[in-house]
């Protein structure tokens, strides 16, 4: 019994330590990019990909970044040792469209927004969640767009695009977000 209690106390201590550590990092107000990096990672938990997305169970879950990388090492930090349904999370950076390969989430930096039509066309029929921070990206067919309102980052989601790509976005994600495109309540 005493051993059990001791073990429990150790676990509590460890959890408390874990809780305390990020709190020290968050002492500084996070930047917009930092928040967006975490969000990007969080999308992997609220979106469901079709079953045939992965050839093998060991295939990595890839977060691709097209264009200049606003997140830098923060994103790598956020996804380190993380998994999505058993698939290890990796970050791949694409400098041009031609490099874009098989990836589950593709962040399109606002620098590449001009070629959004081209990008979306390329990704058509691939189950890739497209995300961008460029204004009006959602209206242009990007599935999720970060928008800043009252110094808070809000999400705009083009449900139609996602559905067309065979992706299912959790209703939980949809509730606080703004729906864009056809069917949007505008």
């Amino acid at each position, binding site marked *: 019994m005493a051993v059990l209690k001791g073990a*429990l106390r150790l*676990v*509590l201590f460890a*959890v*408390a330590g874990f*809780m*305390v550590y*990020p*709190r020290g990092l*968050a002492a500084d107000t996070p930047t917009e990019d930092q*928040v967006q990096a975490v*969000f990007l990672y*969080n999308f992997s*938990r*609220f979106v469901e990909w079709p079953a045939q997305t992965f050839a093998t169970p060991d295939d990595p879950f890839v977060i691709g970044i097209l264009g200049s990388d606003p997140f830098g090492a923060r994103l790598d930090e956020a996804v380190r040792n*993380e*998994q*999505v*349904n058993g698939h290890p999370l990796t970050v791949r950076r694409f400098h041009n469209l031609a490099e874009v390969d098989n990836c589950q989430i593709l962040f399109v930096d606002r620098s590449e927004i001009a070629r959004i039509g081209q990008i979306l066309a390329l990704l058509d029929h691939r189950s890739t969640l497209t995300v961008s921070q460029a204004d009006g990206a959602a209206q242009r067919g990007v599935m999720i767009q970060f928008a800043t309102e009252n110094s*808070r*980052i*809000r*999400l705009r989601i083009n449900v139609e695009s996602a559905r067309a790509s065979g992706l299912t976005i*959790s209703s*939980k*994600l949809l*509730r*606080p*977000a703004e729906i864009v495109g056809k069917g949007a309540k505008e």
Partner: protein
Amino acid sequence: MSRSSTPIRRTLMRMIFLSCGVVLLVTSCAFCAYEFLTFRQSSIQQLQILSRAIASNSTAALAFDNPEDAAGVLTAFRADPHIVAAALYDAHGNLFAVYPQGLAVQGLPSHAGEGYTGAGYTFSRTALTGFEPVAEGSKQLGMLFVESDLNAMYARIRLYALIVVLVGGVAVSLAYLISRRLQHRLLQPILALAQTTTAVAERHDYTVRAARTGAYEFDLFTDTFNQMLTQIQESEGKLQSQVSRLNLLQHITHATGERQDLPSIFQVVLRSLEENLPIDFGCLLLHDDVSKTLTVSAVGAGGQDLARQIGLSPGVEVPIDANGLSRCIAGQLVHEPDVEQVQFPFPRRLAAAGLRSVVFAPLIVESQVFGVLVSTRRAAHSFSSGECEFLKQLSEHVALASHQARLHGALQQAYDDLRQSQHTTMQQERLRALGQMASGIAHDINNAISPVSLYTEALLEREPGLSERSRNYLTTIQRAIEDVAGTVSRMREFYRERDSQLTLERVQLNRAVQQVVELTRPRWSDLPQARGAMVDLQTDLADPMPEVMGAEHEIRDALTNLIFNAVDAMPTGGTLRVRTRKTGGADSEARAFIEVTDTGVGMDEDTRRRCLEPFYTTKGERGSGLGLAMVYGMIQRHSAELEIESAAGQGTTVRLSFPAYGSSVVVAPKAQQVIVNRPLRILLVDDDPMLIKSLKDTLQEDGHAITASHGGHQGIEEFSAAAKRGEVFDVVVTDLGMPHVDGRKVAASVKGISPTTPVILLTGWGQRLIAANDAPAHVDKVLAKPPRLHELRAALAELVP
């Protein structure tokens, strides 16, 4: 009854209530505890479910940093009014959102680190709090804190308490009703049983039985109790029969103890057995050790006919069989439960009379079997071992009582013999004393009447010119004097042994009887007829009768007295029988009897014992009390025997028994009267001047020369003086009893001087003197007073021829 049962009722009620209450309490407690625990559990579960749902919905808000949305999600807690507070913390533990809106943050852990005890729910005194992790997939995004008050639980507890009270009340009421009913069913048999036991205990009536009630194990109890009662009843019965046998034994022992003769002891034993044991037939056999035979001594009163039928009447000899009787004679108690099976004569005889069970009990005294008590019953196997034992004990008692009766008989016999001899001795003593007294009186009377007798005789003989009248008078006087003398002599002599002077002759008793019957006819025939009574006199005379030696007139006198007595004993008439008979042959053993039997009033024992005493009379003034005394005197003088058989109201038989002639009886020579004609010189010596004068006068008239001297001394002097003068007296007549010098000395002196001179002794004791054979030497003749002139003359003629 009800008082004693109250505790049972109360105890039963208490038991039922207590067990009911305990069961109820335990059940309620268990129920409450269970409910409490499950309620806590379900409270936690409900809170957990709600919290998880909220947490799940909060993930996006947390993940995408949307507090407004989080607050909106938290408002879903409104569904449960008991949730008083909720808070959402982000992954760093910072407060993210609260419920309800505007909740005072102070009441909450401001940071998930405070009060955070890991995921889980805890009850405090007033609230249930819990932390639920908020995670999407495997990623923990934050923490949800929720707090619920416990009002619901308390409300539930209050409800349960109310239910417990209600159920308890109903259960107790039901228990009361059921227990009353059960009590009735349980108590009824117990009370019934108690009533039975009370009846048994109070009335000692073991015949009652507890009724079966058909309830539970009570029947077993009742059966056992009844069985016990049956056993007690049996024991009681055995005890009762034992006690009754003991009582019977005691009764018989008591009854035999009161009796001293064997027949009555045997009768009372057999009667008691017949009536009380009971037996059908009982008899007592006496065993003769010498002849080795059994004789029926007594048969029970109820079995007389049966006894005659099977030949067991008293006196019958019973052969000793080789079986039971011989074993019984050997001292064993023999029990034949069924004589049908026995092939010996005596049991067969009993079996023939339908008597099948037999017990032979030996009567043992000093290790000798002197008899057998036979008890029989008609039914076979009907004597129990207890009864056999009883008969054995009884036989011991009977034997003891018989032995005592025999001893008592022997003792009584010895006592009677002793008393008889004492009585005889006393009677003889009394008669001797009376005789001596009578003798003295007779002496004086004889002296006194001597002159009367002498003068009367002399006058009648010689007085010339006596007128007829004078002669008659003198004759009467002479007869009266004779009677007086006769009475006096009888009175003096009745006690005496046979008088040798008594004139014995051959007497024919038959003739004496006939004479007396004739002579007494006026008394037994005429006088009673005058009174209107009738006496029937019958004579029954044996012929031939032996003669007896005796004085006929005495025998006649005795017979006369007996007839007078018999007539006096029959004042209203009756039968008077005079009978003679004989026994034996012609030898000296032969005896002749005279019996005088009347049918009169008889004598009681006391009278019979005293009737021979002189002066004892039952006739008052009429009787002299000398009649039977004289008869007794006669009997004594004749060496005869007197037997008197009498009982009050049964008449009297007097039997005189004489030795028949041929016995050694001396016959005295018969006196002959001789007249003296030669004048003699006679010396008279007497101290009584009247006698001297009368003798002198009468003898002088016969022509004798009389010299009288007063007293013995003077007489001797006269005689010696005369002798010296040579004028010796021809004869000396002297009195015997005189002061100083008596007749013996006178006679001795006379003979000393002149041995040839005869001496005649006159005495008032004359006959006794002769009877005692002490006639002094020197005396030639003894004459009784009053002297009769003719006797005197005869003596003178004899002595001086």
